[in-house]
């Protein structure tokens, strides 16, 4: 190499070095700043999301887990398996280091959920920090997440531990047997590689917008026992939303089943189809025409292509919810029907005309141990079979009934009730007059006296002498007369009007028919309602109250437990002497409209 060449090379090197150095400094600063910004944003996000995170601990004992506050008055979610190890009374540590007592509210054993309530301190009432509920169906594999909680119970000051990781899969199905005999099923859950360790259980998973999207609950047992294996599962917040109404009502939630066994079609190639293998005789799907060898196309609006998806979607609904089902009969005939989902725990069928308790010791798990006497938690606890904490059911029931009574006080009107209306039966227009007669000195029994489309009826709704087919009158209505009798009971007598159950049933979807002749559109029809469950003379009923304004949108009365209920949909509410009354009733039975009562004229009398 000549000197000149060498010098040229040196110059080139110098220039290159200069350019690279310049580039390096520019990019370096830029990189630095953006890294710092990203980190600062993450730190700020963690600072926010950690506030509603709590440590859930056994008072005076060992062990515990995590939880997350979801209301300012102190309701918090955790896992059933965390609560089950402690009982109904907890000590909860906030991120600030403060400690609160808490009491069990509701349980969903199969879904591994527990709702607890932190108890305000006597000297001052606070607004608890709350997590914002996100939409877990929007999560995708590859999204980043934050898990907060108290893994290995490391933080003695309850300042939660944060781990950062990736969504590995969504809509996962996992099941784990629990020592209490319950099978914990994580349906439609979120799989993350975010480190989840013992003690994280019950704590929240957040997306990077800081929304609460799941409850960290379990991990696959890897080769290293119990410690993070790179695959952990978080209960999706969208499933939690379905159960929240029942949890708040202090219930022992049960998950839904279908009333039919479904299996994947076993054939090579092609995309999977789900085939009905068995239908429970007399179940609602049986009554709606689902048969062996039919193909299940969609469930509750979710298209189904594999068995995990079916188990996933079935598992995210509480017992009793009514959802649309699409199936193909004999490969060509596509049908869409609404079905009420039976529970997994066997139903207890009381004698037809008595009011046995709805829960049975053999099929209902025993409640968790009550809070110790003398604690504040004990004042907020009432044990009752079938409920995690009946105290909270009474609380929810009172709130619901107070809001309803604000729309009209009918307690002074316990005499005869008469309604007259124009009545449309199919294409025929006729009239209906239905009267509920209060007992008199001469006749101690109550009676429904009616004239529907020129046919007269007299039914005693309470007498054990009354035949089942008479209770179901008029024919084709499923029991409209008894339904209206029970309607008067609710309005005029409230909880006193029902000798059997009178409890809050959580939140359920309700499907008032659309106005006009448009066919069914269950997504459009669906209204989420608070439910009241009642039972009188062996006849159970469910009452649906709008979550919006508390008005009664309709009710279902089950005259024959092996048959469909009489559904009554109320609308065109108007004021009559300071009381809100419906001007229109649509009566449905099975999947048809029986009658529409229009321009209802109410005559409500006090006791004579």
């Amino acid at each position, binding site marked *: 190499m000549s000197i000149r060449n060498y010098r040229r*090379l040196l110059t080139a*090197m110098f220039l*290159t*070095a200069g350019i*690279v150095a310049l*580039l*390096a400094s520019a*990019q370096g600063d830029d*990189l630095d700043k*953006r*890294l710092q910004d*990203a980190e600062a944003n993450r730190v700020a996000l963690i600072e926010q999301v950690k506030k509603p995170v709590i440590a859930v601990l056994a008072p005076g004992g060992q062990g515990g887990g995590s939880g997350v506050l979801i209301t300012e008055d102190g309701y918090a979610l955790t896992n059933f398996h965390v609560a089950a190890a402690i009982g109904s009374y907890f000590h909860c540590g906030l991120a600030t280091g403060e400690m609160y007592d808490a009491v069990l509210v509701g349980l969903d054993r199969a879904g591994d959920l527990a709702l607890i309530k932190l108890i305000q301190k006597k000297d001052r009432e606070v607004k608890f920090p709350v997590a914002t509920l996100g939409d877990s169906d929007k999560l*995708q*594999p*590859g*999204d*980043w997440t934050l898990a907060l909680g108290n893994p290995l119970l490391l933080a003695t000051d309850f300042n939660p531990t944060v781990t950062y*990781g*990736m*969504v*590995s*899969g969504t*809509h*996962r199905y*996992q099941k784990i047997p629990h020592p209490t005999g319950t099978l914990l099923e994580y349906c439609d859950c979120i*799989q993350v*590689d975010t480190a989840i360790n013992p003690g994280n259980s019950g704590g929240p998973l957040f997306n*990077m917008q800081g929304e609460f999207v799941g409850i960290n609950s379990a991990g*696959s047992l*890897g*080769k*290293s026992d119990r410690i*993070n*294996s*790179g*695959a952990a599962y978080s209960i999706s917040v969208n499933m939690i939303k379905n159960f929240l109404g029942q949890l708040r009502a202090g219930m022992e939630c049960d998950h839904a089943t279908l009333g039919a066994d479904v299996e*994947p079609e076993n*054939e*090579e*190639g*092609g*995309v*999977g189809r789900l085939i009905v293998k068995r239908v429970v005789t007399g179940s609602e799907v049986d009554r709606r025409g689902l048969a062996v060898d039919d193909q299940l196309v969609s469930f509750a609006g979710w298209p189904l*292509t*594999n*068995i*995990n*998806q079916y188990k996933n979607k079935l598992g995210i609904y509480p017992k009793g919810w009514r959802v649309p089902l699409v199936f193909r009969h004999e490969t060509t005939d596509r049908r869409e029907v609404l079905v009420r989902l039976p529970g997994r725990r066997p139903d207890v069928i009381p004698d037809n005309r008595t009011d046995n308790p709805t829960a049975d010791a053999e099929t209902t798990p025993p409640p968790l141990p009550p809070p110790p006497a003398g604690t504040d938690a004990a004042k907020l606890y009432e044990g009752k079979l079938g409920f995690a904490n009946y105290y909270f059911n009474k609380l929810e029931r009172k709130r619901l009934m107070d809001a309803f009574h604000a729309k009209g006080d009918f307690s002074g009107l316990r005499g005869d009730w008469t309604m007259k209306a124009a009545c449309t039966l199919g294409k025929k227009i006729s009239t209906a007059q239905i009267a509920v007669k209060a007992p008199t000195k001469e006749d101690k029994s109550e009676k429904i006296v009616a004239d529907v489309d020129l046919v007269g009826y007299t039914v005693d709704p309470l007498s054990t002498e009354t035949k089942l087919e008479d209770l179901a009158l008029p024919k084709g209505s499923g029991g409209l007369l008894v339904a209206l009798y029970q309607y008067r009971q609710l309005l005029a007598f409230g909880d006193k009007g029902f000798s059997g159950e009178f409890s809050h049933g959580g939140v359920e979807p309700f499907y008032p028919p659309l106005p006009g002749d448009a066919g069914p559109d269950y997504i459009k029809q669906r209204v989420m309602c608070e439910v009241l469950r009642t039972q009188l003379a062996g006849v159970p009923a469910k009452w649906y109250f709008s979550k919006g304004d508390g008005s009664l949108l309709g009710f279902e009365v089950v005259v024959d437990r092996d048959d469909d209920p009489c559904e009554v949909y109320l609308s065109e509410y108007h004021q009559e002497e300071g009381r809100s009354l419906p001007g229109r009733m649509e009566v449905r039975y099975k999947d048809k409209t029986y009658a529409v009562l229009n321009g209802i004229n109410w005559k409500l009398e006090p006791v004579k």
Partner: protein
Amino acid sequence: MNRLVRIGALLAPAVLLFTAAARADDSLTKVAEEVNKKMVKVWGSGGLHGLPAFGTGIVVSPDGYILTANTQLLDTRDLRVHLWDGSKYHGEVVAQEPELDIALIKIGNDKDKVEDLPYFDLAEAAKRPPVDVGAGVLAFSNAFEIATRDDPVSVQHAVVTAFAKLQGRNGFYEMPFTGKVYMVDAVTNNPGAAGGALTTRKGELIGVIGRGLKNELTGTWMNYSIPVSAAVQVKQPDGKTATASMIDLLLRKNKYTKINPDSKPGEGYAAYTGIVLVAEPVDITPPYIEDVIPGSPAAAAGLKSDDLIVYVGGVSVKTIDAYKELIKHYPPNQKIQLEVRRGDMLTTIELTPTEPPKKH
């Protein structure tokens, strides 16, 4: 100069990586979605002694060739493969390379043609230089059998912590592959993950997730992937060595397992083992040992009647025919490694055949 270029080269990917991260999350969800289409879920033999009956595979051709780990999973006639869209196929093992710990499966046939599958271009992937230590990567697998039919496989994030040979610690691991592997900081090698994909954060294939291996000294489990560019020298029974790589498996397909493709039936060595196989009523009878001749090499090696020979020299044998075809290539005094199933256990047995005993 060289040094400066290197600085530049180091800088560039750092900035690229960062922009990828800053563009953030939807790019990774897209990568996860695209890679998933090239992944399959595999079901086969296993279920005993912690050996999973499920695994993962990577589609490497549009007509249905699939790369996976060479595990006991493949030791079955009923290998089932689920594609990303939920379609289900019967899989045939077409080639196995024990030195790489990799096998090739084929789905579809003339009757049930498979075409236009999304796939990784293996040749392209093998040409890429190894990724740097410290690089962020993604791992895709059906660990814990969490997915079936059209459920997507799991995706995990990890950082490459080493690109190194494990040979130095060979005594601690039962390591079938002795070349350099990618080690990562996440728990990627869970049950069922073997045969999964290690990719860059852009979704480029860089490795095949290995089977679960334990360091016998520390009791820790290894999270490693075999690089797609891995090549090993494989000793042939004729004494010659040949280079073997993943791409070789794909290029030679079902010709690959033939150890000596030129040999004609009936030829080969007549070394003596002392193994008496069961009578062969049909041509697919599995190679069960009927009897072991006392004092023979088989007796010395500890073989017993009712043992089922599963592998000969790392090659799976499903029939007596396949066993005979393989065994005749071993000359006297050359060790034969046999995997036999005894009851529920898989046992490795080394047998050194001798010259046939002289007849009296």
